[in-house]
């Protein structure tokens, strides 16, 4: 006679070489039949020692390292790091640079969410969305290339402003992109929002209540999808975000579908910010501060004045000194709150750099989200978590 009440927990391994763990994440999954009992993420397969490396780099040299943390939106990381360093000095950023920073950061948000929707849908089985989303992402990367010369890791946001002004072509392309982008999001939503398979795979999966969110400290869409109305751009404003009008999407349900809706809406709102920034941006102006403590002296000065030459040489070869103390700056990155905590001992290099990576904290809630679901749903749950191993392992 078969006893149907036997329950036996077995442990299976998922990753690190697995197409839907979004990188090199290893999950140790305890399953009872098909039901997940416990999931334990094993991280560190991409530990590159960024924080340690930063202790041996000057403040400027750290910027390229930040690019490679959350490599889906490198410019948001640049922004967070530069804002943290600028807090040491209280530098005033020129108007035009402030707008360009907002433009670059919001474009990075859109690009990151596009990769998210592409891979998330691909994991669940909708291949078409992948091709459409990457078509738009290519356009954004082309614009980055026009403006910065690099497709992904451009390190374009620098301490005290941005590296150089954008060419005219960048704005023309961005204008036409923002004009049509809403209809592109409509297209993705047409494919997914009312799709029966999509709904069956996402509604009720990976539930997080608002107490859970607070207990685990998840941020970004994982928080707004559970009914908490919080966005650092509005609640702890940095840069010039207070000048734009946009809404913060919040959904009550707390499941994968709700987070999907939040992210789709976020893309539209980012597009709104981009449109407003394009209208408001001053036509000309400096893009780098002239504060001599952080900025390189102007080229004309270097050719004519000895002091400027020495200063330039000093900053390039040794770096500039930051005052003793510590700073923290968090920004609303596409994945959640990305924070840089810097300790300075009054030297040219940070004494310690701690990165508060949103994906790392969000991954902590994975077990809570996955318990009680089927093993096949784990793929959807990892996808909705939107993890990037670069910033988890650092």
């Amino acid at each position, binding site marked *: 006679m078969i006893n149907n009440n036997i329950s036996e927990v077995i442990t299976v391994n998922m990753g690190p*070489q697995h197409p839907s763990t979004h990188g090199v994440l290893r999950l140790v999954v305890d399953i009872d039949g098909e039901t997940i009992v416990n999931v334990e993420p094993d991280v560190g*397969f991409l530990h590159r020692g960024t924080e340690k490396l930063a202790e041996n780099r000057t403040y400027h040299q750290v910027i390229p390292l930040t690019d490679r943390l959350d490599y889906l939106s490198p410019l948001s990381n640049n922004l967070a790091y530069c804002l943290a360093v600028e807090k040491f000095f209280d530098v005033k950023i020129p108007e035009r640079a402030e707008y360009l920073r907002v433009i670059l950061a919001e474009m990075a948000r859109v690009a990151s969410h596009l990769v998210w929707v592409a891979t998330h849908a691909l994991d669940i089985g909708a291949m078409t969305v992948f091709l459409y989303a*990457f078509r738009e992402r290519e356009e954004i990367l082309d614009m980055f290339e026009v403006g910065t010369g690099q497709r992904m890791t451009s390190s374009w946001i620098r301490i005290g402003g941005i590296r150089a002004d954008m060419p005219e072509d960048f704005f023309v392309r961005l204008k036409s992109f923002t004009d049509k982008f809403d209809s592109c999001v409509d297209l993705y939503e047409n494919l997914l929002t009312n799709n029966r398979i999509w709904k069956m795979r996402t509604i009720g999966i990976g539930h997080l209540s608002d107490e859970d969110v607070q207990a685990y400290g998840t941020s970004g869409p994982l928080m707004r999808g559970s009914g908490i109305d919080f966005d650092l751009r509005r609640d702890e404003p940095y840069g010039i975000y207070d000048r734009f009008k946009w809404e913060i999407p919040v959904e009550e349900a707390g499941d994968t579908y709700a987070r999907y809706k939040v992210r789709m809406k976020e893309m539209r709102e980012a597009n709104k910010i981009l449109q407003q920034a394009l209208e408001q941006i001053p036509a000309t102006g400096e893009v780098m501060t002239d504060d001599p403590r952080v900025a390189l002296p102007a080229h004309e000065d270097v050719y004519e004045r000895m002091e400027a030459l020495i200063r330039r040489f000093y900053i390039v070869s040794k770096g500039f000194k930051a005052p003793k103390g510590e700073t923290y700056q968090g920004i609303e990155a596409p994945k959640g709150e990305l924070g840089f905590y810097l300790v300075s001992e009054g030297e040219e290099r940070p004494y310690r750099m701690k990165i508060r990576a949103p994906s790392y904290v969000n991954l902590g809630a994975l077990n809570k989200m996955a318990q009680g679901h089927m093993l096949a749903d784990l793929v959807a749950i990892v996808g909705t978590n939107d993890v990037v191993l670069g910033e988890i392992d650092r």
Partner: protein
Amino acid sequence: MGLIDRKLPDNVLTTTVDSVINYCRKGSIWPVTFGLACCAIEMMACGAAKYDLDRMGIIFRATPRQSDLMLVAGTVTRKMAPVVRKVYLQMPEPKWVIAIGSCATSGGIYNTYSTVQGVDEVIPVDFYVPGCPPRPEAFFDAITALQKKIMTEKVVRK
């Protein structure tokens, strides 16, 4: 070891069979999906609509058992190196490896305690693609180079 040992000289029969087999292999390179870090995003972009690896017969496979090319795209850390090697050993012959990005070729900007300074420390590499990350065009360059290399291979008598 080929089908026949080196007992006979090259003749029109073996070379023709070789080139037919090579031609087929060249047109259906199946790489194993093995994205490690940032470079993997560019690899995905290559597979998407604009660059479209499919037109070269390249379809990403999720398992090493079905693939003959390994694209190592990203930083190989000390914790990951045994896995890279294991996946490589699981692939059936003939197999090729392309190291993508400066991390996989030489460690790149990460000269730290936890990174392997180039994936060639653990597995043999056929082609190196520079860049951080390389442009999709650079990927295609490596793949065309690999196709040329495949055409020169001797299959029947090794």
